């Protein structure tokens, strides 16, 4: 291949899942709708790991995102016959079991021996917590500064956010499918680009470009017309919304595009909305691979439903990794009733006073009680300006407490108000609110040097 041909080579990474619970049809549509080289599937949110940890405690063969197995089934022909490669953080707290489930699907579909599944492990720090704390790693909460010792006995899961390097290794060793635990969302896009273009681990500008490509597509259709405020009425055919595809070049420039004939819209405004989503300091978007500078990004239209991204710069990565820790943090429940015209808001407020008086009289202890009036001020609170009388109002009240009994008693105090509270009330058919155990999030940092990742190829 000549130098020019090499530098013009395009690698296509398609996003097929923006979170666990996203559109089941998207992965298949991405591999069938046009050319793609890689399919990237992001399954993990902040508290997902703790849910998976609980599942693994009940059944040691579980603990990964089950949706991924269905997704693999739907894209298997493209992977086996056309060489599309899949990178997903669906492994949760049990990447090996996840990989075995993928291989089992392949076997059932007559593709035994045609699939190599790379498994990335080492992010799970739960078995090592005491060793780490004893070794001088306090895993202090990044927001409050408290050491992890404060909640140590309530910790459910602890995972380091790992970068692209072990995924690149798995791809280099021939994996068609790479399954990770808590890798960063952005690494899922970055790793295929590093693998294809051979970007060095200190090529900061190109690595930053890979991260920003990942940030743009990691939330699926949220950059291609979904949840897009700009000109939302005129965004076409969201029923068939096209999920985004990054068309990347070796120099770190890329185009955000989608398959022809799909709905939604990719424009400078739609991509900009996604760029600012969940952003902190734009000059320092810190990842395990690189610190990316969002103030360097340039966007330009590149034809219909295409945006070109260029100019990106980055700085050396830090020597820390972020750790996502989940711990038990008490109980909560939320109840609601609907009050109808006339005087809907006044009635809802009266109901709230009655309930609070009863809870007080019983001496129940809550860490927090929160009332919202849906239809009036739940979204914007005191900033909402009422433009006339609400035809109906949903009264919504939540409580939080370390005392499970107090929360349980609260759940029995909503329905009685239907007969012994303010009038014209409905919306109680759902029954008593459920008591939920709260699994809270504890972000911390740890020295990179103490986290050792491992790559295994199965199949």
């Amino acid at each position: 291949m000549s130098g020019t041909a090499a530098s013009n080579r395009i690698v296509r990474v398609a996003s097929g899942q923006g979170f666990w619970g996203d559109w089941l049809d998207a992965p298949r549509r991405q591999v069938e709708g046009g050319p793609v080289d890689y399919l990237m599937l992001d399954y993990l949110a902040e508290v997902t790991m703790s849910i998976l940890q609980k599942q693994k405690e009940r059944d040691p063969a579980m603990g990964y995102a089950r949706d991924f197995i269905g997704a693999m089934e739907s894209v298997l022909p493209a992977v086996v016959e056309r060489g599309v490669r899949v990178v997903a953080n669906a492994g949760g707290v049990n990447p090996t079991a996840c990989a075995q489930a993928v291989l089992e699907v392949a076997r059932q579909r007559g593709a035994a021996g045609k699939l190599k599944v790379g498994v990335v492990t080492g992010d799970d720090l739960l078995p090592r917590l005491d060793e780490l704390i004893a070794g001088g790693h306090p895993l202090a909460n990044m927001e409050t500064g408290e050491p992890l010792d404060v909640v140590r006995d309530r910790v459910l899961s602890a995972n380091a956010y790992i970068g692209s390097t072990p995924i690149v290794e798995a791809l280099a060793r021939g994996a068609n499918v790479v399954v990770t635990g808590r890798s960063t969302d952005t690494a899922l896009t970055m790793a295929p680009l590093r693998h294809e273009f051979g970007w060095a681990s200190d090529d900061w500008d190109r690595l930053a470009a890979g991260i920003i490509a990942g940030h743009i597509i990691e939330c699926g259709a949220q950059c291609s017309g979904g949840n897009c405020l700009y000109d939302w009425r005129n965004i076409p055919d969201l029923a068939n919304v096209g999920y985004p595809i990054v068309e990347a070049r070796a120099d770190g420039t890329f185009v955000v595009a989608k398959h022809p004939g799909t709905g939604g819209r990719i424009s400078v405004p739609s991509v900009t909305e996604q760029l600012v989503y969940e952003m902190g300091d734009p000059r320092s978007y810190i990842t395990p691979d690189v610190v990316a500078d969002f103030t360097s990004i340039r966007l330009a239209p590149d034809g219909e439903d295409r945006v070109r991204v260029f100019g990106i710069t980055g700085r050396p990565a830090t020597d820390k990794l972020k750790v996502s820790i989940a711990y038990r943090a008490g109980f909560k429940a939320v109840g609601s009733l609907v009050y109808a015209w006339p005087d809907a808001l006044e009635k809802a407020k009266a109901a709230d006073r009655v309930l609070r008086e009863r809870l007080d009289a019983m001496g129940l202890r809550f860490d927090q009680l929160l009332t919202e009036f849906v239809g009036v001020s739940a979204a914007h609170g005191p900033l909402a300006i009422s433009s006339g009388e609400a035809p109906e109002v949903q009264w919504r009240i939540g409580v939080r407490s370390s005392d499970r009994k107090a929360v349980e008693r609260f759940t029995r105090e909503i329905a009685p108000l239907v007969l012994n509270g303010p009038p014209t009330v409905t919306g109680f058919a759902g029954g008593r609110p459920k008591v939920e155990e709260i699994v809270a999030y504890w972000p911390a940092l740890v020295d990179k040097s103490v986290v050792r990742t491992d790559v295994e190829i199965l199949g």
Partner: protein
Amino acid sequence: MKVRLVDIAHARSGDKGDTANVGVIALRPEWYGIIAESLTLDRVAAHFAGVIDGGVERFELPNLNALNFLLHGALDGGGTLSLKTDAQGKVFSTAMLRMVLDVDDARARTLALPAAPA
């Protein structure tokens, strides 16, 4: 002249723990300057007084004609702790766009800014 932010900008918001972030993007590049001048730290903090418990941080992205704000203590503890309908700060975007700006008449005409409805 009164100008509604919702008529000259779009926005998206999200969460990190108990902090909501709001990115505000000019609808036209030439409107970025007036938005950046008007949305000072103090002005935004005053707008969200009584809505959030913590401080505000402000960042500029002139390359995207955008500003980014971090609103601390915005989400009743955030994540799974929060009892709010909007526990993840998804609709702080348009709460920000409720702001109304005072713009010098001549400048508003030069920039073709839409006037707020009377």
